[in-house]
């Protein structure tokens, strides 16, 4: 190996070192540790004791765990398709030649800029039973308003709807980028063949947008499985009657309200497991992040 090659390698190692160390300590190590900690009983003062599979046994007998799992599942199943449809619809809308289209794009994206804590406070103010503009507007229209945040039948749906309001603009931008990659000529050709908007969507847009659609589906699912914590924390605090107690929220409660770090790790290892499977799937489908049109 000549001196030049060696110098280049040393330089590369030095350039990479700060980020590699940081990623290992603050991302990879926690991920591995989450799998290890689950076999220990850890208290808030650093005391630690090996307990084998006790945490997992406890999980199986913990009704609250099953409730959280069910809430998380319902949250993902409702949120992901709704978000997909809304953001694709918005992207198609602001793709049209209509006046002031830039203003519309900005408007749809704007909620994404606001922090989730602000979003939570804002919607408590908007939906509050005695203060909210939404219940007053509904009763003004003669529709009896349900208690959006106080009724277990409505609370999770409300959280989902608010999340769509926040994130649809973000996924809209991703869809827009995908739409812009579709050559104009294809639409021209479809139009010359006499295809209307619906036909040309089905024949051109939908198939060519598949890589983007996959990306949005997979990333929004990951975001849904591990997200929602801040919103639930501010909006409902897991209630009413645990109807919005997502698994991430239950993990937080066990760790930071009850000091059960080991048990919380066992719980979050379920999340990590779901993510791992999902990530492998993502890798297989996308070939390490590179989509091609053939396999979509």
């Amino acid at each position, binding site marked *: 190996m000549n001196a030049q090659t060696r110098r280049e390698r040393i330089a590369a190692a030095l350039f990479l070192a700060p980020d590699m160390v940081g990623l290992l300590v603050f991302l990879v190590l926690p991920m591995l540790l989450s799998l290890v900690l689950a076999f220990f009983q850890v208290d808030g003062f650093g005391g630690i004791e090996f307990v084998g599979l006790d945490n997992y046994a406890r999980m199986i007998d913990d009704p609250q765990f099953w409730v959280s799992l069910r809430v998380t599942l319902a949250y993902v199943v409702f949120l992901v398709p709704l978000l997909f449809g809304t953001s694709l619809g918005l992207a198609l*809308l602001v793709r049209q030649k209509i006046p002031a289209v830039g203003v519309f794009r900005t408007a749809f994206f704007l909620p994404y800029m606001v922090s989730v804590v602000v979003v939570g406070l804002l919607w408590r103010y908007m939906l509050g039973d005695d203060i909210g503009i939404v219940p007053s507007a509904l009763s003004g229209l003669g529709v009896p308003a349900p208690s959006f945040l106080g009724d277990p039948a409505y609370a999770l749906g409300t959280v989902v709807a608010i999340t769509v309001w926040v994130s649809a603009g973000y996924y809209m931008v991703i869809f827009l980028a995908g739409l812009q990659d579709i050559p104009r000529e294809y639409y021209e050709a479809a139009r010359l063949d006499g295809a209307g908007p619906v036909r040309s969507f089905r024949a051109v847009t939908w198939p060519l947008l598949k890589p983007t659609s996959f990306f949005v589906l997979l990333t929004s699912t990951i975001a849904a499985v591990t997200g929602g914590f801040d919103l639930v924390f501010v909006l409902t605090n897991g209630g009413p009657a645990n109807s919005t107690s997502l698994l991430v929220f239950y993990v937080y409660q066990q760790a930071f309200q009850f000091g059960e770090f080991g048990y919380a790790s066992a719980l979050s290892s379920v999340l990590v497991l779901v993510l791992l499977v999902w990530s492998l799937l993502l890798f297989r489908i996308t070939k390490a992040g590179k989509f091609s049109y053939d396999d979509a």
Partner: protein
Amino acid sequence: MTTPDTRRRRARLGLFLLATVLAALTVFPLLWMVTGAFKGPGEVGGTNLLPQSPTLDNFDYVFTQVPFLRYLLNSFFVSAVVTVIALFFHSMAAYALARLRFPGRDRIFLFIFATLLITFPAVLVPLFVIVRELGMLNSYAGLIVPAIFNAFGIFLLRQFYITLPTELEEAAKIDGAGYWRIYFSVILPLSRPIMSALAVFFFLANWNSFIWPLVITGDQELNVVQLGIASFQQQYSGKWEYVITAAAVAAVPTMLLFVFFQRQIVESIKTAGIK
């Protein structure tokens, strides 16, 4: 008679109206928050968008009764420091991954890419344990250091550096410049557009972050603004004119940032999303 031309114009008008209605519905809650900050206790539960008798009392109260300015400064400090260090580290790593030749380069890149999929809430508990063992609980270091590292920035910068032409680097090499010199005087200046996009993105993410500050800080002195408004709500529940004012104060800087840096933000999302 309807020609295809008038039919198209009508369709366009219909779409325009649809977009107007949807945009109004989307923005309304934000408007409601901003105007709510100017409403007195008698009006805050009312149904008028604009206050009948606008008042600044809420702002006065929020800034004098709680150390709200301190919260804002804490958030600003943490977000700015994280952004600067992260940009520096990420561009260094990206430079190595994109422009230098060394064994295992693709594997290291794949490894970094894979860490993109470790989302923060899933590792919250072990991360807390590590930061506690490092003695960084309840400190600015604890707020800042773990927030620096994410693969997103490295990935984006690397994709950008790959597309740069090699001529400038070659010229610098012939002039006898080492790798650090090339990085500082050739690569960094060229990355200004993508760096500004990432800077906005990082700043926002940190300004808006909530869970991490919530679990690792306890002192009021260290409260960031998101934490401040969340605890404000618990303290003043029912006093909606104050709560909504605090929320508006926390949100307005991010919305302004968006208005000024919209193009950069949108570009970075597009690049991250697809390429």
